[in-house]
Each structure stands twice: as structure tokens, then as C-alpha cells.
């Protein structure tokens, strides 16, 4: 294809094309999708001069590599993946020029877990129900070729601050009490918000499981199924808090104890196993 711009060599743990998300179909059970670190995604498109919702590649973890198929400007935003372009180290959050057949390779996340790759002009994805975000279950595979959308816009000089991605893995996020906090008990909810939780092995684009706590177990037999959205923290019968993410279910039968506020969703998108999460009630 003439407008091919990038070929995936190694897709890593989970790489997918994402735009601003898929709206209008959650009432039919279709997840929202979209970037898990919306801040990094937004900065990426601004520095490249792309439209706000231009599609980019979201990479989770290391072991990603690919080849540029034409000369272009690109950028990496979010977690620093220790990237090289043709074996020369490159920084995150800056526009970089790639040559046809340049090799981009990630060597290991320094902190955080998600990096966004974008090209000036954006990536052209398959539009499915109004969005180019890959639906749950779909991901990039070795050999996949990404096409250039265009046209190239005017790059913005934007201030950015990625200090929320922490090397020590200790995070604090703002929460409000959830719709089911009364059902669970105000006292339990207060204790939950004061507590801190280790991030378990089970984390993906659907949800993040936190370590279970005794005082959270057996609080309810479940609720009548209600809609949920990214940032909702459900408590399962075994006392395990689960943060709903962008590819997660649109509705759930577990009570929602607290809800992570929008400005801190970017932190949730950078959590990895073993990190320590605590809350600040607002």
C-alpha cells in the first residue's frame, strides 16, 4: 500500500490502535475503549499537530519494535520505554524524524507501563461503530501494517508534565465515594479510602485487580446490575477491589465503593504489578 507508514515487528505484551473512544453503543454492551492514559495520548497529538482524536498506537510494557515504511515525523509519549531509533537512544515527548526503513525498538520501561506512538498526520485505522479504537480482544500482531491518515498539521508547542509517572511505584489518586458506598457502609468506605492497595498480577485493558482485604469481604451479595465506567472501583464478594478500565464491561453486579476522578485516570493507566495505590477523598 502506498500510504503504509509503519510495520509492527514485535507487538509486545499488548499493543493496539486507539482514538478518543467509541461512544453511543455502551447501552448495547460495547465498551468505551480509548487510551488508558488520556493525558499522554492528548499531549502526543498536540505536539504532532494532529486532531484531538487522531488514532495512535498504545503499547503496554516493553518488547515492542517496528519499522517505519516512509520518512515521517513521529513521537513517543507517556512512560519512557528506553527506545532507540536505529540503535540511537531517543527521548519521549519530543517530535523525532524517522527515515524510511528506520527501526524503532523499546528496551525496557523506566517507570510506568504505557507509551503512545503517533505520527504527524495520524494513523488510519478501521472505523468500527464510529471509532478507530480496536475493540476489546483485538490487538496488533507481528507483521501488521499501519497506514498514514494525513494531512499533517501544525505542531503545537505545549507544556507538559509527566511527573505523575513515578519510579517508586507509589501513587495517590483522587476518588469520590461510589454510588453503592451507603450500601457497603459509610465506615467501610472511609476505611477503604484511607487504606492502600498493592496492584495484583491481573491488570489489562479491561480492569485492574487490587489485593483483597478481609474487611471488604462478604459485604454484599451483589446489587441489581448497573452501568459502570472507567474509574469505578467495584468490590467483589471475596473483598477484592477491581478498577474498571476502558475495555471493561459496561455494566456490573458488584457494588461500586469509590470512583477515580478523571484527572487521575492517567495514573491508573500507568499502574503495574506491585505498585502501591492509595486514595485521596474529594
Amino acid at each position: 500500500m502506498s500510504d503504509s507508514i509503519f510495520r509492527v515487528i514485535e507487538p509486545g505484551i499488548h499493543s493496539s490502535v486507539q482514538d478518543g473512544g467509541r461512544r453511543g453503543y455502551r447501552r448495547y454492551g460495547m465498551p468505551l475503549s480509548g487510551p488508558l492514559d488520556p493525558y499522554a495520548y492528548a499531549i502526543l497529538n498536540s505536539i504532532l499537530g494532529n486532531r484531538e482524536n487522531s488514532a495512535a498506537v498504545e503499547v503496554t510494557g516493553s518488547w515492542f519494535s517496528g519499522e517505519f515504511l516512509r520518512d515521517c515525523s513521529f513521537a513517543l509519549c507517556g512512560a519512557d520505554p528506553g527506545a532507540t531509533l536505529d540503535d540511537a537512544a531517543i527521548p519521549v515527548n519530543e517530535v523525532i524524524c524517522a527515515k524510511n526503513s528506520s527501526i524503532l525498538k523499546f528496551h525496557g520501561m523506566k517507570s510506568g507501563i504505557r507509551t503512545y506512538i503517533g505520527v504527524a498526520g495520524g494513523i488510519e485505522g478501521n472505523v468500527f461503530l464510529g471509532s478507530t479504537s480496536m475493540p476489546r480482544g483485538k490487538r496488533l500482531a507481528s507483521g501488521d501494517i499501519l497506514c498514514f491518515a494525513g494531512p499533517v498539521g501544525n505542531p503545537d508547542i505545549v507544556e507538559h508534565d509527566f511527573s505523575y509517572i513515578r519510579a517508586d511505584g507509589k501513587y495517590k489518586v483522587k476518588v469520590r465515594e461510589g454510588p453503592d458506598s451507603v450500601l457497603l457502609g459509610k465506615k467501610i468506605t472511609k476505611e477503604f479510602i484511607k487504606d492502600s492497595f498493592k496492584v495484583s498480577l491481573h491488570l489489562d485493558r479491561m480492569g485492574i485487580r487490587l489485593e483483597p482485604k478481609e474487611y471488604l469481604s462478604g459485604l454484599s451479595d451483589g446489587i441489581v446490575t448497573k452501568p459502570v465506567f472507567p474509574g469505578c472501583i467495584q468490590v467483589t464478594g471475596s473483598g477484592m477491589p477491581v478498577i474498571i478500565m476502558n475495555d471493561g464491561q459496561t455494566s456490573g453486579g458488584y457494588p461500586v465503593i469509590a470512583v477515580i476522578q478523571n484527572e487521575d485516570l492517567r495514573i491508573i493507566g500507568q499502574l503495574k504489578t506491585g505498585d502501591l495505590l492509595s486514595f485521596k477523598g474529594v
Partner: protein
Amino acid sequence: MRKEYQLSVNFQFKLHFPADNYVLIDFGNRIDVDLNRYVLSMASALETDAIIEIIPAYSSILLEYNPDFIKKHELKSFIKSAKPKQMENIETCHEINVSYGGESGPDLGFVSQNAGLSEQQVIDIHTSKEYRVFMIGFLPGFCYLGGLDPRLETKRLEIPRLLIPAGSVGIAGGQTGIYPEDSPGGWRIIGKTGFRFFVPGAEEPFPVKPGDSIRFRAVKDV
């Protein structure tokens, strides 16, 4: 098949503002046909440009809104003054062909033994009713159906199957439902339908809407 109904009015609700762009309209933890009709009518009465997405469930509605377009207090009074539409009191019943038992429904034998009924009796009971689609969620096109005959209630599998093919009709506890796509799952599978609840690429990718109903019809093959 379409049928009319009367809308009951004046259900009470609470508003939760769990995030800057979401409001949950909560009518309480209740499964009730009249309430669900009210919820769905109210959901369509709330359509306006400032609201990005409306997601109704059994007894609640989630709204995603744009706080730059509508302030919290404006949204509150908009919701409180919303009048559910009396005009659209029509629901569609979808007849769905199901091949019961055999390879299509490997758990039909278990369900019938568990109920102390013959397989044919289970099929007769399962096909004798209309099931209301209270809401859609869990998987794209998965309908939460109400009205399973209590005689057919069966516990889930102890160990979920790794793959249940799309179109499988199952029972879990007091619920019956259809898997819209291939998925792992613990439901007791009694049959299979060729009807698709999620048709990517079609003009109407989700042919069944909340508030519709489903009637199963036993056929040899689907």
C-alpha cells in the same frame, strides 16, 4: 410482533455525581417490569446535545455529559423535570429459533434431571414464555432477560467452559440468556440459535433493544 403497554408514573430516584462528567440516576436495587419501562422511557426523554451518552439498566440510568455545556445544577433540574414519553409505548417481540439438546445444548440433560422433568418438558416450558430484555450489557449484545420459569432454575457449572460458541442459549441460576459472541462461561447450555444479537457492519448492529422481548421457538436445526 409489537404490543402496546401503559406507562406507570412517579417512581422516585436519587442522583449520584461520581465523576465530573457522569451522573447516575438510581431508582433503587429493584427488578420490576413497570419500573424498567419507566427507566427506558425516561432514558429517551433525556436525549439532548449536552449529553454524550445515555446508558439505561434495570433500575438506573448512567449519563455521560459534557460539563462545559451543562452545569451540574442545570443537569439536576433538567433530569428532575424530564417527562417520560407516553408516545412510544410499543415493544417488539423477537421470535428466535433454537435447536435444543444434542451438540447444540450439551446441558439439556442435566437441566432436565435437576428439574425432575423430561427434556421435552424443559423445552416446552422454555418456549412457552416471552422474556423481557431489561437491559443489555456484559458482552456486546448480551440481553439480561427476565421471566425464567422457576422450575428451570439450575446452578452454574462448577468449572466454566473455556469456549461457549456464539448463539448458545443457557441457564444460570434464575436467568436465561444467549451468548452473543464466543466467550468462556459457566452457564448451562441447553440449545443454540443462529440469531445474531451483534451484527458488526450492519446498519442496525444491535437488532434487539432494551424493552423488547424474546420468544424461543424449538426447531430441529439452526
